[in-house]
């Protein structure tokens, strides 16, 4: 083996490598040169027959050629891979415009009443209230008598209240007309200090655009030995600001009358009705929004509390109405119709969770 033939072989092999166009040919070439029977490997096997001097010269040359060939093959391999990848990527093109099915989290909805109850709960949780509940089917005693309704009050008539047929004892149960029976239940079962809100379903024989035979109410009750109307004003003003998410809100407390509170008041909030849209917390109009007062001494007595020792306030408002005012629904009846279009439009996304730290609404 001469230097020249070695050089020629080297040149030939290297140019072959450069000329290879695909992976398989390159592999063939690798076997043909560096494989057991390959041309370069064959050169190595000639070393054994050489004289030591010859070997000393040719050995490094052949080895250098082997390494160079190996390196070139690897380089070529990488080049071919890159070309191949480029080709593959060129062919791998998709239509990026096809629409997805909607995610379940984007089609699911929470009813505005549930949402608003969560909002109200968030606000009152910040003031240390808990939630009390009671049954929808109530006794006349808890719905009326204990709440200081006189025996012949018109609310006790079939005209206003849903009744069940009398039982064998002549007792006639009814569907609670307000959540106030829960006040009595709470005062009877819990030692003051009491701070609760009482959301729930309530029922009256009424049906038109703004009245449905079932609606939702939330009442609040604070009982201890020192709470007075100054505190009531603070709680309600803080609640209204927080609920309607405005920095300031003007309120107007008007003396009024309810059987279960004394003194009693109705509360108006500042609003703007111009432009056919109701804006709370602006403008120069007033909107009646809730009723409240100091728990009537007779009610405290009926719940087993001494009105000369214990005192406190109660308030009540319509949840559906709060929802309508905040979120703009016009017709109460649609709340209970389960029209998917209405639910989609007025409902809330599943993870719109009202909290004090994240805000009531997004």
């Amino acid at each position, binding site marked *: 083996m001469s230097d020249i033939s070695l050089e020629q072989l080297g040149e030939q092999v290297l140019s072959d490598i450069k000329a290879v166009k695909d992976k398989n040919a390159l592999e063939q070439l690798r076997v043909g040169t560096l494989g057991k029977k390959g041309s370069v490997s064959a050169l190595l096997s000639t070393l054994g027959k050489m004289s030591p001097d010859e070997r000393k010269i040719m050995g490094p040359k052949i080895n250098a050629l082997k390494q160079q060939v190996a390196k070139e093959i690897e380089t070529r391999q990488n080049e071919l891979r890159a070309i191949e990848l480029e080709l593959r990527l060129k062919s791998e093109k998709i239509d990026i415009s096809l629409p997805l099915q909607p995610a379940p989290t984007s089609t699911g909805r929470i009813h505005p009443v549930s949402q608003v109850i*969560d909002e109200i709960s968030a606000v009152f949780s910040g003031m240390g209230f808990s939630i009390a509940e009671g049954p929808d089917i109530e006794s006349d005693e808890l719905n009326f008598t204990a709440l200081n309704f006189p025996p012949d009050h018109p609310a006790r008539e079939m005209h206003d209240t849903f009744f069940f047929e009398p039982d064998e004892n002549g007792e006639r149960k009814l569907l609670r007309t307000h959540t106030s029976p829960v006040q009595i239940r709470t005062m009877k079962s819990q030692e003051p200090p009491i701070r609760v809100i009482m959301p729930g379903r309530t029922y009256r024989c009424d049906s038109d655009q703004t009245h449905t035979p079932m609606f939702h109410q939330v009442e609040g009750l604070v009982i201890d030995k020192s709470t007075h109307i100054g505190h009531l004003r603070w709680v309600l003003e803080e609640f209204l600001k927080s609920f309607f998410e405005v920095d300031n809100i003007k309120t107007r407390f008007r003396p009024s009358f309810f059987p279960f509170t004394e003194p009693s008041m109705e509360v108006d909030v500042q609003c703007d009705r111009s432009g056919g849209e109701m804006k709370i917390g602006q403008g120069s109009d007033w909107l009646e929004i809730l009723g409240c007062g100091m728990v009537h001494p007779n009610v405290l007595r009926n719940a087993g509390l001494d009105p000369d020792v214990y005192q406190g306030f109660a308030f009540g408002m319509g949840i559906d109405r709060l929802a309508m005012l905040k979120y703009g629904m016009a017709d109460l009846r649609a709340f209970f119709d389960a029209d998917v279009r209405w639910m989609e439009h007025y409902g809330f996304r599943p993870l719109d969770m009202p909290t004090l730290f994240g805000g009531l609404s997004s």
Partner: protein
Amino acid sequence: MKFTINWLKTHLDTKASNEEIIDTLTMIGLEVEEVTDQAKILENFTIAKVIEAKKHPNADKLQVLLVDDGKGGEPIKVVCGAPNAKTGMMGVFASTGTYIPGADFTLKKGNIRGEQSNGMMCSEKELLLSDDHEGIIELLNDAPLGVKYVDYVKMDDVMIDVAITPNRGDCASVFGIARDISATGLGNLKDEPIKAIPASAGETTIPIELRFEDKENPACPLFAGRLIKNIKNVSSPNWLQQRLRDIGLRPINALVDITNFITYDRGRPLHVFDADKIAGTLHARMGKNGEKLEALDNKSYDIDETMCVIADDSGTIGLGGIMGGISTSSDENTTNVLLECAWFDPINIAKTGRKTGINSDARYRFERYVDPSSTRDGIELATKLILEICGGEACEIKVIGEKNPKERIINFPLAEIERLTGLKVSYAEIKVILTRLGFWLSGSGEIVKIAVPTWRPDIEQKADIVEEVMRIVGVDKIPVEPLPALSGVAKKMLTPSQNNRRLARRALATRGLKEAITYSFISQQDAKLFGGGDKSLRLANAIANDMSDMRPSLLPSLLRAASRNINRGFSDGAIFEVGQVFLDDSENGQKNYASAIRYGSAKINGAGRHWQSKAEKLDFYDIKADLAAMFDVLGQDIEKAQIIAEPAIWAHPGRSAKVQLGPKNILGHFGEIHPSILAKFDLEGPLVAFEANLDALPKPRKKATKSKPPISLSDLMALKRDFAFVVDKDIAGADIIKAAKNANKAMISQVNIFDVFEGGNLEKNKKSIAIEVIIQPKDKTLTDEEIETISAAIIKAVEKATAGILRG
């Protein structure tokens, strides 16, 4: 309660502006509902003369008028339908462009049956002066042509309508309202004593009796009458007509107008009978079934024995305290009248009023309590006006029965005001306020005695006095004070049950379901289909047939909703409700349930056809996934509960299940709705649903620490081995999982079914179930023999449990 500022000022000496008066009314609890500046509304109506009235050529009942509006222009052509329009009359004219308040439209040029009409001669109703629409207003002949009507009749007043709460009968009078305002210091009450009119005509000769069986609580305990002889029932003088018109009442004749005036002015309803029409003894008694009354509103009312009537020997001649009858009413020929001033029981009045539907001014006041001590004053005031306007001679007042107002004295600790309101008010101020409201205060020191005036039956105890002082001082004067915090950081607010409902809603919504809230009552038919419909849960006075029974399940309403939505063209949907159902009428019979339905093709990944997936029918497992997801959020792994092939009464027998923690602790049901139930709701299946009793979920145990147990993470690789078994079709897949797991509980961490296959080469009643078993070595790598042993155990266990065989 309507009145005008000018009327108010006959009882209140004040320099306050209208605005101040209006604001004060609302802030002391007399909520102003409406303010009407009458002069402003009617400023465009002028006095005009009908120069000519001719019959309309093309209409029998119409006339064509030529009207002189006094502005010097051409006569204006007006087509008019009023029968009283005639040549030469003076009336009230509205030109085109004028807003007509009583008809709620703006007048335009018109062409009525071929005749032009360029204005209108108006009726009282069109000007909101009264309900009279029988003809147009006819003014005196000397009425000044072209002058504004409001200037001519000196209408410069502002009408106010206030809402009177049920406890404030004393403010159903202009005088009472003036007294309330005076307490604020905005003016002084003109409280002159009412003088007795001497009786010049002797005794009231008409016999009067109270005939009640209930002597303790008669519906009418007091009846005062006075005969006035030789009167002339003329038209009322202008001032009186004006007062009534200002508040929307139509003047009728002097006698009626006087009683209406005193009703509003003093809150004291009265009635006048034509004395010559009374037959025999005038008496008050309970009505008799079958009696009828032809009342003054020209309607006939059926009387029953719960109603208090005024009667004579001919029968009922009035509904006591509500409305008089026609037979004894006064008219232009009346010469002798009997004035009635009685006291009626408020509760009886309210009941009779609701039963008959009569909303009279008398009822409004009697049902709110009329001060019994106003009886004599009422008669004297009416007598004075009758004698002034109608002439005549008054007889002596005859009083039958008695009604003594309760005398109330309240021991009032002055500190009570600050205790309940936070408001600091000096005794001097308290005294001025209460005295002006008619209370008497005596004593000094911390507790004073307060006597309640006869017109305030609503003042019974200390808190009532606090309200009086508070409302007059003003709620806005109460300093706002933060509610002191009970603890540094507020504690958890929700109970586990409340939290479960909140989380159930969110969990279901994240699965694409929409929350519905439906009525708690449903139709009897629907209730019965779902296991309800018991008599104890049926409303005695439902407002509609489909709202008669308390629901035993949330599903009927959801199915009705699905049906409505499908009929609107929305055939795919997934909806849920979390709410109460009623298993019986006790407190414990009310349960918190969650239910969901999927209909059409509403799978979790969307409904309808889509390029990514084939539209497949809804099945059992779609709804099981919803239920499982909800349970998972609520801390219950559905696979750890028992799932039993026991259908609910609403479910498909072979494609539904019951989920329970034990035979007595049923968590719910899920699966396909039974086709025969679907048919009742006009629905087509498959439609899948679940119903879960949230109250049955185990309560979370109180733990001593929130710390979780330590995690042990094996460094050794888990192994997967697959097996397929051929079993009978009715073998439950879950049993294969259970058997495989139990084959070596220590090593097998998980078993999954990854294929279920029927048909092919399998026998008809067989299926193949393929499982993947995950084996987790604990402390050393497993040898081949060990793995073989576990595999053999799995095969043996499954074959034994299912009588199946390993598929080769």
